[in-house]
């Protein structure tokens, strides 16, 4: 296999839409899904004389993202014009940052290596820029339809060092960055809605060589798994090319997910000649040490810190905590249930089991889940105090999802409160022995393995209300 003779070298560019109400340089709404060109004004339409004014919130969110990704935020950064001619960019240039970006020099840990040390992926830079509009080519024959609602929406671009060596590492990096941005609450980070987009730079070289090979840029990947598959396909292509005595040509390639292959983009040669120059309509962005310090001190708890804390506080395993902290909303829900119920293990089981199953069934998301954490904790407490059985609790849970009622109320309404009363249980046991004479006789004659079957009959008869522990005790006493 030729691929074993080469090492993959990958750097990723991640574009992220910031969660602002208005665009980067004008007061137009950033709402997704508005009718075409409704959210436009002289600034984002590039009408003559219109001037950009930077959105303070965009700066805050970009700074927060930079700090959360371990970058140094530069006290002075400069906006630049990136010139290219395309109708989705009515000014003829994109306002971006070039040689003095907002932030530089970060890193994220994407897991552990074989020696148990963190695998760190460097972040070269994080800069602010504006999004372009949307061009729709397949709506009208022979023409392109332009919607400028997205033009001017604030973005950050996060550029990694060429530190990634496998497609799996690239996937891990993307998931880590996405999770950090979710915890920082700076973006919706949805690839489906286009609020997170990824371009990959990839080259190959023989292992041990330090000089980088010629890279290609791969675009048009609509999921993290598409990024991984595209990198594998392009790696194969470059390896085969070199093995057959060819040379990798620097070019932009598009991932074709249907055909699982990359193909050259039709972008004309020279279109990457962006002729950057400082944006004369905007002064340098200055952030003093106090502003940056304030932003740093207001950073929310990041995924790694939260994982460590949850493991310590609630006695759950490292594997369990990975599942629970997948999104900040899930982690917060779990923590609230665990805190109120005082039982981390039970909270884990219920959140990962019943809660996620109910959300999947209703395609809901946890922030709008009908059962609030305190009510689920109350249900857990009813089970712990043996007020209801575990089986009954699942029924109560389903009814809570359905009706929105509190657990104690549902249990009482449905007659699911557990019966620990000896007389009631003894009556059920007697009835079961009478109704199932064959099993009863054999059990009483010493066939102990039938105890489970009889307990099951009693639980059924009691509609789940009998305390199974007491039933077992009573049967043991009879059988013994």
């Amino acid at each position, binding site marked *: 296999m030729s691929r074993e003779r080469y090492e993959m070298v990958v750097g990723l560019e991640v574009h992220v839409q910031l969660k602002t109400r208005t665009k980067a340089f004008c007061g137009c709404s950033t709402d997704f899904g508005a009718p075409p060109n409704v959210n436009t004004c002289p600034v984002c339409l590039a009408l003559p004389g219109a001037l950009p004014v930077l959105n303070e919130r965009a700066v805050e969110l970009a700074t927060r993202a930079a700090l959360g990704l371990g970058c140094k935020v530069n006290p002075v950064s400069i906006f630049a014009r990136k010139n290219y001619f395309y109708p989705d960019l009515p000014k003829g240039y994109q306002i971006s940052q070039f040689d003095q970006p907002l932030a530089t020099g970060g890193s994220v840990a994407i897991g552990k290596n074989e020696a148990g040390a963190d695998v760190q992926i460097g972040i070269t830079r994080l800069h602010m820029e504006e999004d372009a509009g949307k061009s729709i080519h397949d709506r009208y024959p022979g023409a392109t339809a332009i*919607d400028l609602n997205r033009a001017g929406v604030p973005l950050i671009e996060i550029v990694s060092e060429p530190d990634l060596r496998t497609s799996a590492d690239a996937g891990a990096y993307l998931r880590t960055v996405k999770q950090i941005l979710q915890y920082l609450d700076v973006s919706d980070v949805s690839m489906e809605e286009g609020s997170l987009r990824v371009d990959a730079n990839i080259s190959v070289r023989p292992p041990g060589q330090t000089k980088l090979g010629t890279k290609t840029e791969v675009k048009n990947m609509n999921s993290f798994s598409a990024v991984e598959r595209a990198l594998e396909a392009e790696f194969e292509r470059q390896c085969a090319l070199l093995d057959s005595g060819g040379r990798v040509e620097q070019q932009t390639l598009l991932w074709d997910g249907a055909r699982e292959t990359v193909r050259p983009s039709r972008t004309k040669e020279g279109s990457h000649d962006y002729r950057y120059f400082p944006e004369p309509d905007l002064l340098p962005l200055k952030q003093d040490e106090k502003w940056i310090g304030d932003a740093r001190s207001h950073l929310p708890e990041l995924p790694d810190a939260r994982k460590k804390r949850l493991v310590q506080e609630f006695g759950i395993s490292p594997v369990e905590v990975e599942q629970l902290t997948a999104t900040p909303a899930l982690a917060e829900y779990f923590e609230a249930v665990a805190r109120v119920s005082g039982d981390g293990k039970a909270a884990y089981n219920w959140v990962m089991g019943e809660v996620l199953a109910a959300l999947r069934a209703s395609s809901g998301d946890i922030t709008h889940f009908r059962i609030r954490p305190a009510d689920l904790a109350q249900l857990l407490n009813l089970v712990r105090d043996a007020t209801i059985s575990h089986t009954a609790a699942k029924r109560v849970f389903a009814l809570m999802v359905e009706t929105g009622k509190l657990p104690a109320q549902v249990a009482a309404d449905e007659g699911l409160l557990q019966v620990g009363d000896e007389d009631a249980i003894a009556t059920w046991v007697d009835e079961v022995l009478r109704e199932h004479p064959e099993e009863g006789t054999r059990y009483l004659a010493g066939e102990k393995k039938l105890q489970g079957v009889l307990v099951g009959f009693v639980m059924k008869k009691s509609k789940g209300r009998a305390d199974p522990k007491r039933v077992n005790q009573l049967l043991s006493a009879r059988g013994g």
Partner: protein
Amino acid sequence: MAVTREDVLHIADLARLGVDGARADALTKELSAILAHMEVLSAVDTASVPPTDGIGAEGTPLRPDERVSPLMERTLESFAPAMRDGFFIVPRLATHEDPAESGA
């Protein structure tokens, strides 16, 4: 530093401007003259002068993240060359045929 005819044609191409032979020659001369003047300016010793990124020590002013109704006195239809169903309509560009290529 002089501008070559190739430079002029390259920049014109990037900007999708049609420039014919005679115009290209004229522009080459004009742009070279502008750059020659820049070289005169470059000769001034500015070693002790701090660079000016813009006017104002405070940096770029920021605005609050609040929605503002667009100051549009005229409708889009009144000045857009072509519109359909709310979209601006432009000729399809041969070099950018792929829908996925749009976007920053």
